[in-house]
């Protein structure tokens, strides 16, 4: 029995974000707060965003879920921090395309660790886990 298949999903970077999540916690003050869950499986995230002058100044998350949903949230907060809102939304779109298994051209946007989640595209049942945090971010910046 081989686990090749699983290795493409559970990359080291993902496990590192799962075990040592970046930006875990809450933002004080009047941060934007978005609660989102995946009703089919119970994954749940609370995202805190500080958006000012069209920029995501800070982002933190809290929640419970599988390695894919939690590592994706960690990577997402890392990726959008300091970005202009339109760039954060462009990244989210790129991420959705990546989940659909499309070839993506990130252009001027640095995907960094996020690329490690590419393997999720081959596990259709898990795509919603990976996109949960990004959907929360989209909803958050739209609130502003």
């Amino acid at each position, binding site marked *: 029995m081989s686990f090749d*298949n699983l290795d493409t999903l559970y990359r080291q970077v993902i496990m590192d974000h799962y075990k040592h999540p970046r930006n875990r916690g809450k933002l004080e003050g009047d941060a934007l707060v978005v609660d989102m869950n995946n009703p089919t499986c119970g994954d749940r995230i609370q995202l805190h965003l500080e958006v000012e002058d069209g920029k995501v100044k800070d982002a933190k998350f809290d929640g*419970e879920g599988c390695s894919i949903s939690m590592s994706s949230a960690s990577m997402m907060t890392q990726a959008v921090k300091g970005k202009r809102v339109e760039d954060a939304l462009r990244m989210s779109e790129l991420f959705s395309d990546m989940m659909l298994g499309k070839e993506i051209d990130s252009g001027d946007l640095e995907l960094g660790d996020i690329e490690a989640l590419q393997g999720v595209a081959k596990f259709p049942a898990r795509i919603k886990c990976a996109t949960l945090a990004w959907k929360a971010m989209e909803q958050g910046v739209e609130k502003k």
Partner: protein
Amino acid sequence: MDARSIREQFPILNQEVNGHPLVYLDSSATSHKPLAVLEAVDAYYRNDNSNVHRGVHTLGTRATDKYEGAREKVQQFINARSTKEVIFTRGTTTAINTVAHSYARANLEPGDEVIITPMEHHSNIIPWQQAVKATGATLKYFELHDDGTLNMEDVKKSIGPQTKIVALTHVSNVLGTINPIKEIVELAHRQNAVVLVDGAQGAPHLKVDVQEIDCDFYCFSGHKMCGPTGIGILYGKQELLEEMEPVEFGGEMIDFVHLYDSTWKELPWKFEGGTPIIAGAIGLGAAIDFLNQIGMDEIEAHDQKLTNYAMKRMREIEGLEIYGPAADKRSAVVTFNINGVHPHDTATALDSMGIAVRAGHHCAQPLMRWLNATATARASMYVYNTEDDIDQLVSGLTRTKEFFGNVF
């Protein structure tokens, strides 16, 4: 019972998934369908397809005979007094909703109580939440012991003159707990409360005799007992069904239609508005024949043996937690978690080895909170499963534990 020859009747099991022979351990979600059921549905569409209870042509008569024949099979399967007490619905969910709409809305008042348990499936919770909101009655829960069995002392204390409806599952789809429904029916009847039993996980696994249990309503789904999706049963005592208003109005369920008023057909048809689920009912009839051929006592014994074996083998895995009661108090369901591994990750790892289990909250969020778990993994078994499937599961779980132990 020879599970291997039974397996041959389920062609779907004979396939590879992700390069491994399929090991299907998700029958609580839905069971597979034997050839006899597939063929019965196919034969109906090929030879007899027609609407029922309409017109006089030959196909119409054949379709009607088969549809009503299926009702008789259900009646005998659960030992209902007559076919008037057997209503075809879309499934357990629709059956419970019918009672919560019709009976509950007509009989509940402020001060009245509906009591359910913390181990209910969402479909036996939300209809009651809605019914008490609409009537001003109150919803209450019985307490559970730590092992996930009902606290009967609390049940005795809770049921009182204010109790109008008790609704509970025969078998928990998460813990596997088999509830002492007969005893609870007795307690409720002493206070003139009616009892609805959610039999979605009961009817497939246990011999059900509604007269012996003496429950007022018993609801179940065809698709969990080798039948097709989209068909289920509402059993109700005739005197209760007689006084209940239908919840769906239209063709098939009427007697006379005037300009401003109409009258209903007699039971059971007054609850079957519109063209019914003809092929589904016929498929369910074939599923009942299939289960009867094996024998419900045999099925119960097979489930028990397999559950004992599964629990014994799974306990050998260090760091694996099993939820719910001892094997002799449960049906063929084992819900578990591997310490430190999220159940989704467990299920994905097992799937890569061809092993199908369910992960998530199993449509029982209140129970997950009671268990203090956000999600769990569940292996559930049925007539076609063997000890070999359990061995595959155990070796898959061991490998899963190793895999995540290494990557972490």
